[in-house]
């Protein structure tokens, strides 16, 4: 278990921990965009750059760098801070109107950018790749991916058409740090606006209200516990659960008597 120093604080971290995990363990605030605990590190947003003071002075992406015995890290070191601020200026120029980015930048003391604003004024995506990665690496659907490279890079389904592999789970929207993925359930369909994709919803066997994406029906076979509850819409599930509790409560009450 390596012992490292983060901003003057000495701490021992688990074997295999990254520098970012050590920073979080130390309770140091270092906001990031492309890091998510459930996925392997990606190293793309560059907001977790920190200075290594020792053993070898360097500026590293903390999310992907293994914490090694004796490392001395400064999160507010001059080199890393300078790069993080420029990166935030880049992001302000990329998403000129987006409050999420504005707030994040302001917290780091960056309130304006010296770079021309993107011509796509409503840009919300910072290309952190979390949606692509969760869809591919955690969900296993790989319904969306990166398209183009360099300044042309964007996220989308193949050819920007209906994503045939999408199961409508909404994990992409759940992990998006900038709320760039827009999803809504309307008229028996889940519409993933950002991906030009529509997925039909199955009706709840109890109340008949459409509620679960059809392509996710296979999950029923995998979720054994409370199977009948998982087959219901959230409202019916609550009712059923409450009814079950009532049965248990009654039984307990009678038993105690």
């Amino acid at each position, binding site marked *: 278990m390596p012992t490292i120093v983060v901003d003057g604080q000495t701490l021992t971290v688990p074997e295999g921990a990254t520098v970012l995990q050590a920073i979080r363990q130390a309770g140091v605030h270092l906001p990031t965009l492309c890091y998510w605990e459930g996925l392997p*590190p990606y*190293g*793309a*947003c*560059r*907001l977790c*750059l920190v200075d290594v003071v020792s053993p070898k002075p360097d*500026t590293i*992406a903390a*999310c*992907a*760098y*293994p914490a090694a015995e004796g490392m001395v890290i400064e999160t507010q070191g001059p*080199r890393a801070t*300078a*790069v*993080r601020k*420029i*990166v935030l200026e*880049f*992001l302000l*120029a*990329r998403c000129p109107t987006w409050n999420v980015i504005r707030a994040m930048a302001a917290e780091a003391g960056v309130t304006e950018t*010296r*770079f*021309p604003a993107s011509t796509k004024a409503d840009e919300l995506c*910072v*290309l952190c*790749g979390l949606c692509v990665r969760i869809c591919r690496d955690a969900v296993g659907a790989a319904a969306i*991916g*990166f398209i*183009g*490279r*360099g*300044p*042309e*890079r964007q996220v989308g389904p193949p050819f920007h058409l209906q994503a045939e592999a999408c199961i409508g789970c909404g994990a992409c929207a759940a992990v998006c740090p900038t709320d760039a993925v827009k999803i809504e359930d309307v008229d028996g369909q889940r519409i993933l606006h950002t991906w030009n994709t529509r997925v039909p919803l199955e009706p709840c066997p109890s109340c008949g209200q459409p509620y679960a994406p059809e392509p996710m029906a296979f999950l029923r076979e995998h979720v054994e516990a409370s199977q009948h509850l998982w087959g219901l819409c959230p409202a019916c599930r609550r009712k059923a659960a409450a009814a079950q509790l009532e049965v248990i409560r009654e039984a307990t009450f009678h038993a105690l008597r």
Partner: protein
Amino acid sequence: MPADLEPLHAAGRASLYPDRIKITVGMATCGLAAGADAVYEALSQRIKQRELDAVLVGTGCIGFCQQEPLVDVRLPGQGRVIYTQMTRPRARALVDHLAQTGTLPVDRAWAVIDQEESLVEDRVERFSRLPELSGVPAYSQQPFFASQRKIVLRNCGFVDPASCEEYVARGGYRALAGVLSEMTPQQVIDEVTRSGLRGRGGGGFSAGRKWQVARDVPGETKYVICNGDEGDPGAYMDRTVLESDPHSVIEGVIIGAYAIGAHQGYAYVRDEYPLAVERLTNALAQAEAHGLLGENILGSGFNFRLDLVRGAGAFVCGEETAMISSIEGGSGEPRPKPPYPAVAGLWGRPTVINNVKTFSTVPVIMARGGDWYAAVGAPGNTGTVVFSLVGQIANTGLVEVPLGMTLNDLLEGIGGGSGNGRAIKAVQTGGPSGGCLPARLFDMRITYEEMTSAGSIMGSGGMVVLDESACMVDVARYFLDFTTVESCGKCTACREGTGHLRAILTRITQGQGTPDDLALMEEVGQAVKAGSLCGLGQTAPNPALSTLRYFRDEYEAHVIEHRCPAGKCPVGA
């Protein structure tokens, strides 16, 4: 001579030095671009018409691309005579002369190769020449070749790249046979380490140390990758080696695989190099057929497969982790290091990735010894480096020089200066990852460290020469345009940063820049270097930062006086 190689060696010598007239046409991409195939066709027809008893073959690039198409003629027992700038009429006249007189014409005879060195065998063969050619310079005395030291390019232009036999006849696969029969893998690594060989892709990391790391990591499955994804504008070293001497690369890769304990390798070649792909494919099939690849190589019990992977054209795939992702079937995007590929690379296994030229050097080191190699070049920068000299230079071509040579000796001595009456102003080394070095630094020695401290990099070997007519701001804009488009877009620093650098440079060339832009460019450049995920972004600002450092006056003329000193930019428009 290992018994397995003897028949190949004999057949190779017979085709290298036949008892008939031998006419050879340089048919690498440089020759073909200059019309070598038409010259070959004309020669072929005329030989038939005149019923000349001659064998006509193609070879790779001997390096003197400026004078292509090159045709060599060899009379039995004599040295090859090189004829430059051949055309169809000249080709026909050459055959006519041979048929009529049985001798060689003096006209356009540029050099006589009166001795050939077989580097691997440590043997020099001398040939006589016709008395009427006494006034033609020897190949070794032509200034273009005189101070070159050919190790990587040892066979380029000397063998038929389609012939495994000719490669063997010049000592090919002898080093491999020696390694497999007499050396342990550790001895191989020690020899490479002793040679001081550094990665010729441009990074300059010790090849021996890299191999040692990969060997020492526990695990049964390891891989070797040969990086032939050369993509710098103006660079064609790897292409030429693959087109002209593919077996030298294959032999080096097999030795590397043996050293680290790999049984599978990949040669990654960009698909924009169709001739390199074709010749390597052919050479791989030959090596397999002759028991030099596959199961039980040369009866040693060592197994190794080498497969060709064609790159789809992304510049970033030359970066090792992006290349790994590409071979795995993913998109060509880099991942953070560590872990380095030597520890966890292709499919998570220890993987050695070296450049084409690094591998092609290895057989020579094995045959001649690490100490021999270390004596070439400069301490800490041993051996030779291959450059493609392009741009405003008299002798465009592919050259190989000992490390430690000065830029001046390379550009003026071998390159012959600009050749257009204007002075050379700067040289761009290392392509879009490198920088522009001004003429006043040309006394500098060519070493990894000196190139880096001057703000450029050694790089893979592209060397674009710029004379006084070039605008350095425009040159920087060109390279940043390249890296902006070729950035994979994964990390924010590179994707957004290169784009902003390009935008700043573009407005300066259009006369809309301000003095503040220079400071901003410097700041962004340093941030992109420090903050990018991979080598592409970490070096992409170099063309901008080095031109700003050495040619600030040109930038100031653009932003203060709104004037382009070279008259290239539409500043006043």
